[in-house]
């Protein structure tokens, strides 16, 4: 319990101001007929898992197209590529499978 005779201290908050607004991706709704992209950053394990998921998405959910985009591992991809993926897809999933 803090009483009026106890000495207090104010310390300064060290975190950022969180000025950048997070952009929420709108939900795609039904998957039927949609283009769902996979973004693979160099894990060949994802190439395998991604292939399995592609079949599932097409066969079970009627997804029209599942393009796979390669990006370099451990570095930020070219923003132009991200813009292209966004333009060509209804949704994109970054795959690791590691």
């Amino acid at each position, binding site marked *: 319990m803090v009483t009026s005779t106890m000495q207090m201290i104010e*310390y300064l908050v060290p975190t950022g101001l969180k000025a950048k607004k997070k952009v929420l991706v709108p939900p795609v709704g039904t998957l039927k007929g949609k283009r769902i992209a996979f973004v693979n950053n160099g894990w060949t394990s994802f190439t395998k898992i991604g292939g399995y998921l592609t079949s599932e998405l097409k066969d079970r959910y009627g997804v029209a197209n599942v393009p796979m985009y390669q990006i370099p591992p451990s570095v930020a991809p070219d923003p132009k590529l991200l813009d292209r993926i966004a333009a060509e897809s209804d949704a994109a999933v970054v795959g690791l499978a590691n």
Partner: protein
Amino acid sequence: MSDLKLRKIEVLYDFRAVFTDMYRRGFTDGLPVIPATETTVREMLDYVELPPDEVLGIIPPDDEPLTATQAAINSVMAGCLPEYFPVVIAAVKAVTAPEFNLLGIQTTTNPVAPVLVVNGPVRELLDMGPGRRANATIGRAVNLILLNIGGNTPGEVDKSIHGMPGKFTFCFGELEEENPWEPLHVEHGFGREKSIVTAFGGQGTQNIIAAYHDMDNVAHMLADAMRCYGNNTYHVGHGNPLIVLNPGHARLFAEQGWSKKRLKEVLFERTKLRRSYIPDERMFLETTWNDYAPDKMCDLCAKVDDINIVVAGGPEAYHICYIPSFGHTALSTAEIILPKN
């Protein structure tokens, strides 16, 4: 003081209460910190004569702008004196340079952290050395900034599988006075009189006890320790492996006619590995050698000069420290701007 635009939290004036509160809020690296106050932050800012709102860099993965005020708060928390603040600012500039790939370093599964090497007159000014406050707190300030501004919470955003002690702090000055060759910053184009910080994306330390009189044998043993195809530089074909020679070995190399360049060339050649030495099975991540023919050689890194050699540590000529590189990174340098007075 209103121009600092500070956010404050009031707690009981008790060291344990303050630390517990800051820890609970995720503001610390797990170790006790010094609570920053308006007075101590103002001392930092006054020392470097920077406007409180000046943006020193954008810190990924949250891509938050780091203001001078936020840098000062984290530096106070780390235990820095105001005289250390110019080094912290330069280190932030170095680690936020695109070639350093801070985003990858902050978020990878690898055990990687900034390794800060300080050169120039500032080392003496700050009394840098083993167990010294400057070494410990400058490196820690940078890592607190990466945590509190960049948002790389361990285990959540920082996905490093084992972590690495250097994620707390990893900063030292080169012993230029004991280096028979060019010190690191001169090798990279700066005047000897300049104070420079160089950031490496390092993956811990490997000790090599090379107690030989013939420096060719020392180089051979060092190359053997570096020739580890599990290191990331072999996987990606890039990066800056860093060798910390003790002054004794450095002197003996020079006395036996070795230049730094020759030592790098010998290490680059002797760290080559034949593809057939590595298992045939394809790794489940892309790696340089996956499609190599059995006789093709795998390199430690892209080229000879990507290997960096500095001199530091005690004088005895037997321990060598090897710091493997993350690979997806290139060293980055920044000048330390000291106040005029």
